[in-house]
């Protein structure tokens, strides 16, 4: 089915209804396997059991960046092709991205406490993720500042694309900033490549979290379409009442 066919929200909703249970099932199964593998993974010889935080933390961090990519594609869809579902997709993805970023920050800080002895360090990588989180929140604030979602859509799309250009610059400049003030003491630079015992659970969890995102994203898009329908019904009702 071509993307253009999905421009019809009803057709899209029908597809979502069909796909969503299977996606949810796949997510649950992969997540169960991934969790089992994570728990079965051996303890690290230096970090002990806390290394298992990695299996939650790293997929969250991956998705934190991946979701902005999804939103940028949706923004292109809004601005270039005027795809009617593109802004629904962007709007539904933003809170998910913020949640993944937040979880990456929280799990990272919980991991940092036993390992580095501090919940927060102004380390380059953490700082750039924090900026990413702030940008997600700004984007959500933009969506919420305007009552009419169609009007907010293109403004948010422009901001998303500007953010997509700026995020690598911010990442780069924060790296520079950090190396200027303190040497890379926190993240062990050039650490040994992951052993398969860690890599396989990590990749499984990565797949599980990606599936989780797709599931939640489709569900959120469905909810958003329905919410917009209710909104226009209410407005029609109000207009009739006024007439």
């Amino acid at each position, binding site marked *: 089915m071509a993307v253009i066919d999905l421009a019809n929200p009803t057709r899209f909703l029908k597809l979502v209804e069909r796909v969503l249970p299977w996606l949810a099932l796949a997510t649950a199964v992969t997540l169960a396997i991934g969790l089992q593998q994570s728990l079965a993974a051996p303890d690290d010889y230096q970090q002990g059991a806390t290394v298992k935080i990695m299996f939650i933390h790293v997929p969250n961090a991956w998705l934190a960046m991946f979701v902005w990519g999804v939103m940028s594609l949706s923004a292109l869809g809004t601005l270039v092709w005027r795809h009617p579902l593109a802004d629904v997709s962007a709007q539904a993805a933003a809170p998910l991205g913020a949640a993944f970023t937040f979880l990456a920050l929280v799990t990272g800080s919980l991991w940092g406490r036993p390992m580095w002895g501090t919940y927060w360090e102004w380390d380059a990588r953490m700082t750039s993720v924090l900026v990413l989180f702030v940008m997600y929140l700004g984007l959500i604030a933009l969506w919420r500042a305007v009552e009419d979602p169609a009007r907010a859509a*293109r*403004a948010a799309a422009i901001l998303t694309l500007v953010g997509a250009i700026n995020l690598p610059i911010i990442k780069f*400049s924060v790296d520079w*900033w950090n190396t200027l003030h303190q040497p890379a003491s926190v993240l062990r630079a050039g650490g040994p490549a992951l052993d398969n015992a860690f890599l396989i659970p990590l990749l499984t969890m990565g797949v599980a979290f990606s599936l989780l995102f797709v599931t939640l994203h489709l569900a959120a898009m469905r909810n958003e379409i329905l919410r917009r329908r209710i909104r226009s019904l209410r407005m029609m009702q109000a207009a009739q009442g006024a007439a």
Partner: protein
Amino acid sequence: MSALAALLRRDIRVALRVGGGALIGMLFFLTVVVLMPFALGPDLALLRRLGPAILWLGAMLASLLTLDRLFLADSEDGSLDLLVMSRTPLELTCATKAVAHWLTAGVPLIVITPALGLLLNLDLLATAAVALTLIAGTPALTFTGMIGAALAVTLHRGGLLLAVIVVPLSIPVLIFGVAASTAAITGPLSFGTPFSILCALSLASFVIGPFAAAACLRQRMD
């Protein structure tokens, strides 16, 4: 071209006249810098060390404060609609407005930097370094901030939303502005590298800012 020159002259004139508020940013800059010793204590050595950072923060906040003037008045009196519909490319119009805004809101900040540097116990070299980085960096603040100003005027929402959106985008400018200033004062890094990156950021914002702002303003007409 003559249309753009006329627009530039008009924007500068409007900003300098009563109610234009070209100097209010300067006043705000002064206030922020005066506040700092009250918060940090009147330790001259400390102020000297933090001086470039204080000046850069003050300049950034002051330019943020004046940003909504960029499109708001024109939107209220309807001249923005005429600018959008005119035959001049909107990207160039936006760039011209940003240049005019920088001349009336950015340049005053640079002009009083030496006086404020004196208050913060900065020596001549340090003040010159901060002023030079501000000359190179404030255009980037204006041109990236313009995107936020265009969004704000499109959505009829300004104030805090504008600040929340613009500030993360200007983090790189702040980093390299302060980095270049401190490099010039204390070393050990060379001044040239962060300064070149700062210039590069400004040049990149010249390209991105007008296009994004014009895209925002166009959809305002829908």
